[in-house]
């Protein structure tokens, strides 16, 4: 299945590059270990054999499109279900135009959790990532072309395409109704414990900004945390400023987070950043009506609109 998808990816890459339809192709390549499949940027026809796809291709490639904002050539990008929501996010935020992109949807059989690797030398069985077990959009929600017979479905669905059988066997999407479980558990803690917990996380934070740089919703041209002219925040990685950063990041992506879980994956010190985002999503669903970001190009995010009749005071 992965072999077939890799072949199909190389075929389409060859067609697109040889006809000069696109300037760059963003995909994945096999990394230096059996559990690594990092992003690859292909600009040369002779390099298409680098393209590779397996169940470790977890990186969301949507954010790399920002580097091609001002490119005069089209960019082709391979997307899984969760990545395609990031593409909608970028188009909706006017960071990119549809015409600049060639979005190629591929089926996803769920991604393995590489933090569970025991033996780095020999391949072995691994469990799926939590986000894949909780996945509600395993099929691309937006694509110009598709590979592996996957259907483009802008609604909550079951896996389709040639990997559907494997995905179902791996229980992709079986826990989708329990995705707020972790948040609810943290919510029940008493305030003092919450303070201790989040202060401990703030002390661990390195302010490497990996969470910001990977996020398809964090797409400001200039981030306030890059500026030295903002007197109300500091670039120093002090615990109080790190807490400030975490809340600001969560609030800036509120209502626009596509739940790809990349922020938490890239965090080098393991701060549960998605729990902040999911807490906000839970509030949005409960208070302003159910909303999933990155599905509909026309529907404005919940914080850009309002209803007259809503609970007024908090």
């Amino acid at each position, binding site marked *: 299945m992965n072999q077939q998808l890799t072949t199909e990816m190389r075929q389409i890459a060859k067609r697109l590059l040889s006809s000069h339809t696109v300037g760059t192709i963003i995909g994945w390549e096999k990394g230096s270990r059996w559990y690594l499949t990092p992003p690859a940027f292909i600009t040369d026809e002779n390099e298409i054999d680098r393209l590779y796809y397996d169940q470790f291709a977890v990186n969301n490639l949507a954010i790399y499109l920002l580097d091609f904002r001002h490119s005069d050539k089209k960019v082709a990008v391979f997307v899984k279900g969760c990545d395609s929501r990031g593409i909608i996010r970028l188009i909706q935020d006017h960071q990119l135009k549809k015409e600049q992109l060639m979005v190629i949807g591929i089926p996803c059989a769920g991604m393995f959790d590489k933090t569970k690797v025991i033996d780095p030398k020999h391949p072995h069985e691994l469990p799926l990532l939590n986000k894949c077990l909780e996945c509600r959009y395993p099929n691309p929600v937006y694509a110009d072309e598709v590979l592996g017979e996957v259907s483009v479905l802008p609604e909550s669905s079951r896996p389709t395409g040639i990997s559907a059988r494997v995905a179902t066997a791996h229980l992709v999407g079986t826990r989708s109704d329990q995705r707020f479980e972790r*948040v609810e558990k*943290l*919510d029940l803690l008493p*305030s*003092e*414990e*919450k*303070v*201790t*917990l*989040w*202060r401990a996380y703030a002390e661990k934070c390195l302010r490497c900004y990996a969470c910001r740089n990977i996020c398809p919703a964090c797409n400001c041209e200039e981030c306030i945390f890059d500026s030295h002219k903002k007197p*109300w*925040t500091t670039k120093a990685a002090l*615990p*109080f400023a790190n*807490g*400030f950063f975490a*809340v*600001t990041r*969560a*609030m800036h992506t*509120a*209502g626009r987070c596509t739940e790809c879980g990349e922020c938490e994956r890239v965090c080098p010190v393991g701060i549960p950043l998605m*729990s*902040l985002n999911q*807490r*906000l999503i839970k*509030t*949005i669903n409960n*208070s*302003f009506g159910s909303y999933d970001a990155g599905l509909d190009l026309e529907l404005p995010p*919940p*914080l*850009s609109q*309002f209803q*007259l009749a*809503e*609970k*007024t*005071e*908090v």
Partner: protein
Amino acid sequence: MDFQSLDSSNWQPLLIGIICENSPSFAMPFNPTDEGYPNFRCIRVPCAGRTNPQYILRAFQKGADAVLITGCPPGECHYTSGNYFARRRFKLMTELLEFMGIESERLYVRWIKSTEGEKLRETVNDMAKKVKRLGPNKLFKEEL
């Protein structure tokens, strides 16, 4: 750091108000002769919708124990709709801070009419009472 906060037995909560300048109640937030009126300081903003969530965090960083945000009641905004957007944003902000351990009593959002100067005074007194019971705020506080 002032002496008041060094002496824990005589701790008085510091309340910060982020107050819309179009609700005239900002003009009469406190009467200096009032005995026992809480330590309340006002920041004027052009509209409650102008309040960046970072203002609230900054207040907590700089030692505030509770933050009050007031604006005109929905439908009476000077800029037509600023407070409707603010309403959604503060709903999220309150719940997020509660998730991280700042009790909901520490962040007040109130819509106070231009003619209700007394209501603001009562709100501030009420806040002070509740925050006194909770004790000083610890999360996000700047430590040097």
